């Protein structure tokens, strides 16, 4: 098993089927809030996404206290939403491009379960939010191990730096 070199096998060639869709789930969240409907990021608009976080509170898992504190401090809530949206844009785009896919996989898993702990119980038709968190979370964790070696920027980077990012004697496999 060789996972450090830029070798491409059949499994790697199939991964973009999932990778690009997974990345789009996050990058498109940024597009919806910033490009399509900017009111979603306007605290004085009824479309403000901050309001969604209130709906998480009744059956949130582990994070009720954090949610309530954030919602009682509107300035903090806004900063939080800007940071969250930026992270979704950055790592969603990275996943689509296959850039630092291992790091992006970890980041996306944390993002999706961050929402999942709050929203996981919500879904009027199906177990909607739970399904999102479970499937996207598992997929993102998978990319943390597989990386991306086809139709990806990592494919090019790995050819030049097959050992990952070198810090001293450590090799960090960000791609």
């Amino acid at each position: 098993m060789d996972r450090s070199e830029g070798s491409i096998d059949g499994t790697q060639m199939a991964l973009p089927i999932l990778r690009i869709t997974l990345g789009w789930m996050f990058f498109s969240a940024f597009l919806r809030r910033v490009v399509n409907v900017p009111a979603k990021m306007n605290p004085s608009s009824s479309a403000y996404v901050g309001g969604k976080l209130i709906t998480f509170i009744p059956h949130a898992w582990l994070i009720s206290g954090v949610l309530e504190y954030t919602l009682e401090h509107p300035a903090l809530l806004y900063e939080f939403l800007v940071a969250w949206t930026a992270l979704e844009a950055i790592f969603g785009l990275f996943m689509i491009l296959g850039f630092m896919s291992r790091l992006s996989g970890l980041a996306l898993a944390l993002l999706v379960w961050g929402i999942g702990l709050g929203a996981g119980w919500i879904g009027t038709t199906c177990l909607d939010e739970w399904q999102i968190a479970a499937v996207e979370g598992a997929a993102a964790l998978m990319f943390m191990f597989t990386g991306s070696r086809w139709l990806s920027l990592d494919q090019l980077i790995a050819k030049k730096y097959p050992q990952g990012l070198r810090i001293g004697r450590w090799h960090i496999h960000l791609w």
Partner: protein
Amino acid sequence: MAMDRKYVAAVLVFVVIATGLTFASYQVFFAGFTHLTNYSKTPGYDLSGTQLFSNGTLDLQISRVDGPDTYGGFIVLVQILYPNDTVLYQWNVSQLGHVPQSAIRNEFPLHPVQSDGFALVVPLGQNATVVLQAHRYISPGTYIVRVYDVDGQYAAYGRKFQATVAVG
């Protein structure tokens, strides 16, 4: 090959993490392995902390704890009941549709509880104190304060939308 064993161990750890999160949250959010319940289906309210005073003031402490996130819920009837379930006083839908905002104190600034002309609207997750006046003396004793959702129900998921209050 030592490297490979570490890799296998790491993958197995994350198989357990991903699967564990999936199964654990399925139980936590929906009691999926014991008594499957979807709390998003129908509106539910919690009145814990509600207080009633002898001068007829009701501090209705209402939080919306179940039901759809995008809509409602709508309170159309608030009752003060004797312990034997007969009505002492009640506020009907035309009164609840016109509660002034100054009589409502919301915990969170977004998605406030408010009257919309048709009902008292309680958004999911919001927690508010709604001050209602019966304009009559209420003699000392124990009473039940109950609210009705517009669907006609005063209970959901085994929780009644009511609180037992003592007037001193």
